[in-house]
């Protein structure tokens, strides 16, 4: 059966939507990822296989093909682990798409450990900004990225810690709320430094030049 999952990728500092198409069919057991994956994306195979097994779901011993579309753009990073795993679970009917409302407007991002733990990823902010611009309603992301992503409003953030939790959530067995949604980053906080200019004897010109630079002339 074929499944389609939405995820994001990065091109420079711009995010773009990636559709992860997974097909599980009869034939000799194999697991292939196509769509210009780099070595980190290719290695997702082992992480996905093992973490699904360790989340108490049997990994399908069939022919699995995963396509990352648009297939002509280089994909790199480890954040496709989670969406690939979810794609396989949907393709083998372990999870059904219709239980969670707006499933097709949900983005999945996250790196898997062998035991199913979901690790933090890089580049969450540009990807969430693009998701928001595209009108995506929900992002399922590693818990460690939740504070960062909470800066983006108009986006439901679902912080997750392990694959089992995501499976239960998509089966409608548990609810996950973003406990960080009320946290606003205090960007105006004053930094405290141990060193002070009053400790620098002499060197008036150097200090003055630094002052002018800090006042933004360069």
């Amino acid at each position: 059966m074929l499944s389609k999952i939405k995820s994001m990728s990065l091109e420079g500092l711009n995010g773009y939507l990636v559709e992860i198409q997974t097909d599980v069919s009869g034939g000799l057991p194999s697991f292939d990822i196509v769509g210009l994956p780099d070595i980190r994306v290719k290695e997702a195979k082992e992480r996905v296989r093992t973490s699904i097994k360790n989340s108490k779901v049997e990994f399908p011993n069939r022919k699995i093909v995963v396509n990352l579309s648009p297939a002509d753009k280089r994909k790199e990073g480890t954040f496709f682990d989670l969406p690939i795993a979810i794609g396989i679970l949907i393709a083998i009917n372990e999870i059904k798409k219709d239980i969670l409302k707006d499933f097709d407007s949900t983005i999945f991002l996250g790196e898997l450990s062998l035991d199913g733990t979901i690790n933090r990823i890089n580049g969450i902010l540009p990807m969430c900004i693009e998701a928001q611009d595209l009108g995506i309603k929900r992002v399922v992301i590693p818990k460690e990225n939740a504070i960062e992503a909470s800066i983006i409003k108009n986006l439901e953030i679902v912080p997750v810690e392990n694959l089992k939790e995501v499976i239960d959530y998509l089966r409608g067995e548990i609810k996950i709320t973003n406990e960080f949604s009320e946290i606003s980053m205090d960007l105006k906080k004053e930094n405290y430094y141990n060193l002070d200019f009053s400790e620098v004897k002499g060197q008036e010109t150097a200090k003055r030049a630094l002052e002018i630079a800090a006042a933004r002339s360069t």
Partner: protein
Amino acid sequence: MEEFQNHGEISLAHFGVLFLDELPEFKKNTLEVLRGPLEDRNVTISRVNSTLTYPANFMLIASMNPCPCGFYGTDDNKCNCSENAISRYIGQISGPLLDRIDLHIEVKPVEYKKISSDEKEESSKTIRERVNKAREIQLKRYENLNIYSNSELTPALIEKFCKLDVSCKQVLKKAFEALDLSGRAYGRILKVARTIADLDGKENIEQSHILEAIQYRSLDRKYWKRG
């Protein structure tokens, strides 16, 4: 493994400071590629598969010795480097790169009397207050222009916000002839003068501001353009 997308130091320094200590020790071509980003405030990397542009609006601060032994130019003439070695060392920093650095200063040894004195120096807090005030003036002035500071002024905006009176113009003209300054230096001096005036809380650039700005441009006479 070759990474297809990786930001370099200058993108990591976006809206921050990139400090390069011992500047002549860097490879010359590494330093030369800084020229583009310093002007454009972004960096474009072309690879086989695609061309990526990363933001790189950073402040470059660099420090260097005047020669391999470090004593050239000091008053007591302790330097024992050959003329050739000094030229080679200083020549690592090309004219065009130097031209893009607005404030050149010479850090001289501090005298014993000064180090041992109990005289109170200005604290970071006082300096910060002055800087913050200058930044606020700029934010307000450029409110509707989608820029934040004097550093981002384009030539047209320089003309608008860095007006000089007759006496300032004369000073600048003299300095230009005497110091053999470039067209790029012109705009940069005006931006520095504008900032100094902001620090001073003055609406217009005055003669003292322009003089101070020019003074930060004169170091290359001593080291780079040695007769």
